[in-house]
């Protein structure tokens, strides 16, 4: 019996490579989305807190939609929407765009919290020293606000790493999709899933513990 | 009667009570004074079993508090306690605060428990606050609520742990007045307090605690007028 006819086959060494590459894709799309989403989110958060009424009414409302609709629905929706407006994006690009906007919606909330954590008296004090608006943002709001919400941002970033698994619905072979493929072939669900789970855990657990430590240290 | 015999209490390495011997008779009002850290509050917690003890014995009406076989929850019904932080239950109205324990600990019917609660709240002058939540009450009112809550269990003894220390000065009076009323009704009371006026005017005996030792005990006139111990005199000179 030749290898090619065997639908089910044993777990092979090359499969490890396959899983490894997929894990790399998980990290890649996460890194891209977290970076872009964070920058966007900070801008949105700043815009919302800078012009309370209009900020909340416009950007706030739109971002709220992204937090109130399942990510998987957003992914399918935009993947099918891009061609309609003439954009032909591959699964990675579509996934990265949607995941970035989704991240931005979460980060905007965090950023807004950070800016509001600084408080008016402090900002007035900064302005009274003759700092410009931008100097105040750069030298007062940024360092203080960052410290206030950095742990929350780590939480958002980690949730994006985990949520990136959903991009598999577009056919992007990240770690969980790769696991599924291997499971179908090898019929070894437990081992393969355990390996995939361990990968996410190994990233998420230490970082979340670290940010918890930071939070405790900074709180006291 | 409350009998305390050779009581020692440690918090880890810290020796908080160093051999206390003390009897409190029915109907007596005892004030316990001393600087913070002298072990006087811990004494109260040992009496109703909220703290364990390492040596000695506490006996309430012939029942040894720290004996394993003692039903501590039953015993505590007879020992009302009022705390420094008034500890009203924030999620219950005044009436519910007071009625809860009679209902679930003593097994009274709901209407019975509510009747008791209303009676006790009127007793401490909160008749017009029955349906208010604690958040709508002042500190003094909350402390009186706590007193009513303890009284609703119809205890024979009341333990007061610095009941007025956390209150704003203008609210101290109303709580002391309630305590004085209880004393006049013949309640047996042990009051850990910083209110020297109360200790002098209301109590039958005053005990001075110093570094885990009961330095001196006697009638108020003697403690405040003619203390035997150097420590007691120094303490009293400082608090005045």
């Amino acid at each position: 019996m030749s290898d090619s006819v065997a639908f089910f086959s044993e777990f092979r060494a090359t499969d490890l490579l396959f899983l490894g590459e997929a894990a790399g894709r998980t990290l890649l799309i996460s890194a891209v989305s977290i970076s872009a989403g964070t920058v966007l989110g900070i801008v949105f958060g700043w815009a919302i807190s800078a012009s309370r009424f209009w900020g909340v009414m416009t950007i706030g409302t739109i971002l709220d939609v992204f937090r109130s609709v399942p990510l998987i629905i957003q992914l399918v929706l935009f993947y099918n929407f891009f061609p309609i407006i003439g954009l032909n994006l591959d699964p990675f690009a579509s996934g990265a765009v949607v995941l970035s906007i989704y991240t931005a919606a979460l980060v905007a909330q965090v950023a807004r919290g950070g800016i509001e954590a600084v408080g008016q008296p402090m900002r007035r004090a900064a302005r009274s020293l003759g700092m410009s608006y931008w100097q105040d943002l750069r030298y007062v709001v940024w360092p203080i606000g960052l410290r206030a919400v950095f742990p929350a941002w780590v939480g958002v970033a980690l949730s994006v790493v985990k949520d990136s698994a959903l991009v598999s619905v577009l056919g992007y072979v990240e770690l969980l999709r790769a696991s599924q493929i291997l499971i179908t072939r090898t019929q070894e669900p437990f081992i393969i899933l355990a390996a995939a789970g361990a990968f996410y855990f190994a990233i998420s657990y230490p970082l979340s513990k670290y940010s918890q430590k930071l939070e405790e240290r900074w709180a006291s | 009667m409350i009998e305390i015999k050779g009581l020692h209490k440690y918090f880890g390495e810290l020796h908080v009570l160093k051999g206390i011997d003390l009897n409190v008779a029915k109907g007596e009002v005892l004030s316990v004074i001393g600087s913070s850290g002298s072990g006087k509050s811990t004494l109260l917690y040992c009496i109703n079993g909220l703290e364990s003890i390492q040596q000695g014995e506490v006996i309430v009406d012939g029942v040894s508090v720290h004996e394993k076989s003692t039903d501590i929850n039953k015993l505590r019904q007879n020992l009302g306690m009022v705390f420094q932080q008034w500890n009203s239950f924030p999620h219950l109205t005044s009436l519910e605060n007071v009625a809860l324990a009679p209902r679930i600990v003593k097994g009274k019917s709901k209407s019975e428990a509510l009747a008791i609660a209303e009676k006790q709240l009127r007793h401490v002058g909160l008749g017009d606050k029955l349906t208010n939540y604690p958040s709508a009450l002042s500190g003094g009112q909350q402390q009186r609520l706590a007193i009513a809550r303890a009284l609703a269990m119809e205890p024979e003894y009341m333990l007061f742990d610095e009941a007025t220390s956390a209150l704003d000065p203008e609210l101290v009076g109303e709580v002391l007045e309630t305590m004085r009323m209880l004393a006049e009704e013949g309640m047996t009371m042990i009051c850990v307090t910083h209110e020297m006026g109360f200790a002098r005017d209301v109590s039958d005996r005053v005990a001075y605690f110093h570094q885990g030792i009961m330095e001196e005990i006697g009638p108020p006139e003697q403690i405040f007028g003619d203390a035997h111990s150097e420590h007691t005199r120094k303490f009293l000179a400082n608090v005045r």
Partner: protein
Amino acid sequence: MDYNFHWRPVFKKLPDLLEAGLLTLEVAMLSMIIGIVIGLLLAISRMSGPKPLRIFATTWVELARNTPVLFQLFFFGFGLGAFGLHLSPYLIVLVGLSFNNAGYLAENFRGGFQAVPDTQLRAARSLGMTATQTYIRIIIPQVLRIVYHPMTNQMVWAVLMSSLGMLVGFRELSGETQFFASQTYRIFEYFAMTALIYYVIVKIVLGVSKLAARRLFRY
């Protein structure tokens, strides 16, 4: 743009979609109820259980929080197949979401318990209440208030997470949508409608929670 939108087939299926939306709400709500009960037990175990129980609870909480929900669903879906255990799609989602909810809620509850002052416990015990009575009558009601807002958020998450049912063959709102979409190729229209339905469900959950809070917490 030469795409012609066709909304009519979507509107025709709207009653089916709304019914599937009810199924989504049902599974989310059930998973919350189970999650709250288990989450409370996990939190109490972590704080005052014997060591083996503490390790078990900690493992549960950390696994739920540090792996993707989809992974958790896959695990209950075909990971358990390794032990000959096969759950129905409905159960996969219910068990998976309950597992996840319990883990996140346990952490919220732990914070809630720590926020209730020790002195409340002392006051209750001094009245002769047993430890159990104190927990049920005094501590837990206060904890529930503290964690009410995070709990509402978790309910919203449960609604959103249940959409993963689509990937394990469960015909809740997303699964149903995918089924119709694949029949008609009107993928965009169907998913746009479904996005709207989710948005409305989430707003209803938040609104009901706000109203309930007004009745529940008068203090």
